[in-house]
């Protein structure tokens, strides 16, 4: 059972890595900074794990750890998206102004 789960997750992992390479290699160098901050925000997806740890009321320690994990992951997610949006707002062609 354990091995089956691992294999399934590994399957998803490997395919996602290939997909990631395909997607990212098409991003032009002009957008590399927003790409970093935007993908950074996506890596804040650990927030999902943090929510479960903080909310399951298992023990005082796990709730506390979950709470801090939520705070940091949320800063990562929200800060990442807002700052990326701020940057992308500025990328304009002349005619569009």
């Amino acid at each position, binding site marked *: 059972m354990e091995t089956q789960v691992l294999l399934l997750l590994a399957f998803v992992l490997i395919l996602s890595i290939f997909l990631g390479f395909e997607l990212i290699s098409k991003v032009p160098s002009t957008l590399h900074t927003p790409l*970093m901050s935007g*993908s950074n*925000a996506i890596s804040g997806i650990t927030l999902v794990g943090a*929510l479960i740890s903080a909310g399951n009321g298992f023990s005082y320690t796990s709730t506390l*750890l979950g709470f801090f994990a939520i705070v940091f992951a949320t800063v990562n997610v*929200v800060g990442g998206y807002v700052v990326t949006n701020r940057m992308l707002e*500025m990328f304009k062609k002349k005619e569009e102004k």
Partner: protein
Amino acid sequence: MIDNLINFSYLIASCLFIFGLKLLSSPKTARRGNFISAVGMLLAVVVTLFYQGIIDYKVIAAGLLIGSFIGIYSARKVEMTKMPEMVALLNGFGGLSSLLVGWAANITEPFSYLSSSTIFLSILIGGVTFTGSLIAWAKLSEKLPGRPLIFSFQNVINFALIVSLIACGVFFTIFEINTNYLYATIAGSLLLGILLVIPIGGADMPVVISLLNSYSGLAACAAGFVIKNNILIVSGALVGASGIILTSIMCKAMNRSLKNVLFSGFGAKKAGKGGSQELGEVKSMTSQDAYYVLEAAKSVVIVPGYGLAVAQAQHIVKEFSELLQKNGAEVKYAIHSVAGRMPGHMNVLLAEAGVSYDILAETDDVNPIMNSVDVCLVIGANDVVNPAAIEDKDSVIYGMPIIEAHHAKNVFILKRSMGSGFAGIVNPLFYKDNSTMIFGDAKKTLQELVSEFKN
């Protein structure tokens, strides 16, 4: 039933992330892409709240509120020149969060080899990402010296630490009562992050930030294996891949291997051959003299570097380039991939100033036309225009792709002093017959040029 719905929503959220990243392939659609990706994140967070295991919402609400407040506040306030620091910090927080999730899971998850080995990885990668990013942030914001900090037996100590961490991981995985190994892993990974980044110099930060970006993705992946959640694995892998691609682009742009960047303490040794006397005389002139040449120029290429960010000169350089255009000159900005302190740093600064992205050119686009350029204006860049990369086989930067500024009819170099660039080597460009230095603060010099044009 509800679990199926949650998982289905995760699937949709993953698709939104993928579409979001796809739309980042053009500046026109990038903003929409970022928005779509944010919607995916919101969806993932909201459906998680319906997860049956969650009983306590007060802690969650408090955490989300505090985090959102800090996130929005800092993202609104940060200056564009400080973007590398901001990205480094956010990255670090993501890593820390993975570490904490792993730690909490060690308490809540029933013991199994799969969960304990992945908890170990989540803590290890998360910890390295956290302290590594903090050191990168400190170096970028000059709270720590930007130069490489080297001490004796550095690589031996690192190696010993890595071996003990692996040992820790093995014990952590096989023993059910493993709290001591847990603490050792946390301490060890935090220390490793510091030790790995401290010997890396400021100008190599584009590589380090990209690599840490990739780590933060891998940490999320590991956390995904811990809680057996596909969305963490998919998103983590996308980010991991993105970081690795950027890392390799940065390394190629410097013609160095990743190993060389990470472990050689590049720039710590004075690598230059002290042969400056045979290079000839350095000429310098005032901005007024420069004006007469620029006024007659038909084509101008501007090469910005980190100095432009330091001098906060992006707005004035835009005003200046518009005056040149009005005067009938064709203006292009030549941007080297490693100019600045993070991938795309110069592009963001120029975009902030309102420079249209279609006059930004890359190294390969601008080099073939360099012969016909009347004036190449180098602002705060040094190593990326160093012709030693082509001419001097003994140079440490030999083979690095550069912007061939020296082929232009005139090269004006805006620089504070004759100090050498990050690589610590002499730049023969400054001594060429067609080169002239304009000493002083880049912003002030540009302001003088702008007022000359206006009169």
